[in-house]
């Protein structure tokens, strides 16, 4: 009886989509795809983040080194910085402004906690803005916008959807998008 109850409870925990230990990554293609689009805080999200770290580390550095020629006067917008592999390389080039737009809350938390980025942006003022946007026509829906407003030359902004974030972009001489 105890074993039967344990099996039922375990099954509910593992197979229920809202469970933090939902293992849909392994048997549900839709869930796996959604985790790869925007990794959540649960087990599936953790697996997706680990997988993305393995697959993206080298290519994200290569794309900055080989295809972008970022200079000091540039504004760079990166959609989906994820772990921040490209972001780190971009910041080394010392552009005027860097915007990182990330749909995944767990990735945003990781980026915000990264000491390298904190040092790079020389935080003097920190403003936290939380916005919920629900757009029916866009895939990147129900998003949170976390804005770090920073002084000095560089600004790292973590947002979720391009639309609202784009509207506040300064019109610089040169904007480079890395997507």
């Amino acid at each position, binding site marked *: 009886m105890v074993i039967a109850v344990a099996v039922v409870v375990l099954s509910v925990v593992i197979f229920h989509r809202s469970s933090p230990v939902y293992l849909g990554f392994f048997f549900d*293609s*839709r869930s*796996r*795809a*959604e985790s*790869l*689009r925007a990794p959540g805080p649960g087990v599936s999200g953790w697996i997706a983040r680990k997988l*993305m770290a*393995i*697959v*993206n*580390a*080298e*290519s*994200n550095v*290569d*794309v900055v080194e*080989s*295809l*972008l020629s970022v200079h000091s006067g540039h504004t760079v*917008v990166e*959609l*989906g910085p*994820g772990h921040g592999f*490209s972001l780190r390389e971009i910041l080394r080039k010392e552009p005027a402004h860097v915007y990182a737009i990330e749909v995944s809350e767990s990735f945003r938390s990781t980026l915000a906690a990264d000491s390298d980025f904190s040092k790079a942006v020389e935080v003097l003022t920190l403003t936290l803005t939380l916005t919920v946007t629900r757009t029916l*026509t*866009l*895939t*990147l829906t129900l998003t949170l916008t976390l804005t770090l407003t920073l002084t000095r030359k560089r600004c790292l902004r973590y947002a979720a959807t*391009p*639309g609202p974030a*784009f509207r506040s*972009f300064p*019109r*610089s*001489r*040169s*904007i*480079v*998008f*890395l*997507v």
Partner: protein
Amino acid sequence: MNVLQFLDPLREYVDEVYRVLKPGGLVVWGNKDVAKAGDPAVFVNTDWDKCAAVMSAAGFEVTRAKVRLSGKSAYVPLVGRKPRAGKGGGGSEQAVA
């Protein structure tokens, strides 16, 4: 990197990028072919030729570079530049060897 495949509707996003860029500005999309095996309900753009056509229709001068790197790190770059003269009836597409 690995964002283009999720953007739906793609044209709306591409138009927004085009609008924000200054003339001469650059957009670089990094794409991995592994996305083609993903759930098509989520991975909605996995035909890089079609994506290049959408960019071109939006006004970008599109460059398709060869696959870069190899193995798990391999990716297909799609590079678009907003013409300095502004939108003039669609951009051109150019394959880079």
